[in-house]
């Protein structure tokens, strides 16, 4: 087999291909022997090349993973013989939306927005691997903070959290105000 010289994006592609899990930036930089800027350029190139193989690049809190393009889901599911997972309840979906936009967020904060107890919905999301504890608030009682997982991105066909549609400006302002208190 003749081997063309592989550029940084190709070498990056090979590493992400063999890793079953998202790979941290630092680890990529370490193994590829490049700097932050070069890594970003390589990631951008990979994002362009991926679709040629039906692949997309997923970013989750500074780690990267290759996955099949969301619009090929039906083909892939038929090939792997997978069933669609059961749909989430309205309560779980509402809770998930709040976690996705407000993360890291505590249960009390979720309940303040929804006006109802949300522990069951939160448990469902954790059991489905869509939400996970990501830290603790450094206040009295140190409540657990929750965030979305890379499985959340995969399940909803998002390349990163940035692909979530914006909240109405009025709401964003209000939240920003509240968050800075």
């Amino acid at each position, binding site marked *: 087999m003749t081997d063309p010289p592989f550029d940084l994006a190709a070498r990056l592609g090979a590493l992400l291909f063999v890793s*079953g899990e998202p790979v941290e930036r630092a680890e990529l930089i370490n193994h590829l022997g490049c700097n932050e800027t070069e890594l970003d350029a390589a990631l951008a190139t990979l994002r362009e090349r991926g679709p040629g193989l039906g692949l997309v690049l*997923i970013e989750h809190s500074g780690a990267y993973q290759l996955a*099949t393009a969301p619009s090929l*889901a039906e083909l892939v599911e038929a090939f792997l013989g997978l069933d669609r997972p059961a*749909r989430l309840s309205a309560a779980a979906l*509402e809770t998930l939306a709040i976690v996705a936009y407000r993360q890291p967020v505590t249960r009390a904060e979720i309940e303040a927005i929804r*006006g109802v107890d949300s522990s069951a919905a939160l448990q469902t999301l954790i059991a489905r691997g869509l939400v996970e504890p990501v830290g603790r608030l450094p206040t009295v009682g140190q409540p657990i903070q929750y965030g979305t997982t890379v499985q959340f*991105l*995969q399940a909803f*066909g998002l390349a990163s959290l940035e692909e979530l549609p914006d909240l109405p400006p009025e709401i964003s302002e209000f939240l920003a105000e509240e968050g800075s208190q």
Partner: protein
Amino acid sequence: MPVDIRSTRLADCLITIEGFSGPLDLLLRLVEERRLPVTELSLVEVTDQFLAHLASLEDAPLELVADFTVVAARLIALKARALLPRPAEPEAPGEPEPDDLIRQLKLYQAFRDAAQELRLRELRGRRAYVRPAISPPSPARVKVIARDPASLLTALRRWHRRVEPRPVTLRLPPAISLRAMARRLLAGLRGGARTFRELVGRKADRRELAAGFLALLVLIRRGAVQAEQEVPFGEIMVTPRARPWREATADD
């Protein structure tokens, strides 16, 4: 406002109460937009009508119930807030309380819309799939600490010890049929009244005791014997009855 995907199920559930007639989800929206006074809402009536709607369905989808729970919980929360006396706070003239509620409702509405966006994505089923396992690299380069072939044999010996089925001694006592047991009881009664224990045999195991007791019940039902037990768990005295009886069988 985006198409309300979430409410399609609740939109089928029509509610008629004083001052409102329409789908359940619209009711929630009107209350939230404060176009319908929540304090005048009869939650009992809403619930009753929802349950009637549920009963009319062939098989009630769980999602519908879940959706209703969310709406009901929301209505209760809103109503409770409207009805309960607020903690006595120094009047803040510049900040009327309703503003806060409206703000709260707007915030909730925003996330409900966001949830609908997620539902749309969920419905379109656009999931991404990752690789299950690492692919084999070129094996020629891979290093493994050299091992003695005997280690393979050792591994298999260990495996064999682990999974080899141990010889199991099965001791199955001969099963006694109800019919045979009935015969045994009757034979024992030829000499007159005996205790149940004597009839079954002092060395009877639990299975025999159970069979014996069943046989005794059969014989009592047929009028072949009488039985008396003076105290609970005490000895059962069995007496043959004088009248002629046909051969007891256990199979009828």
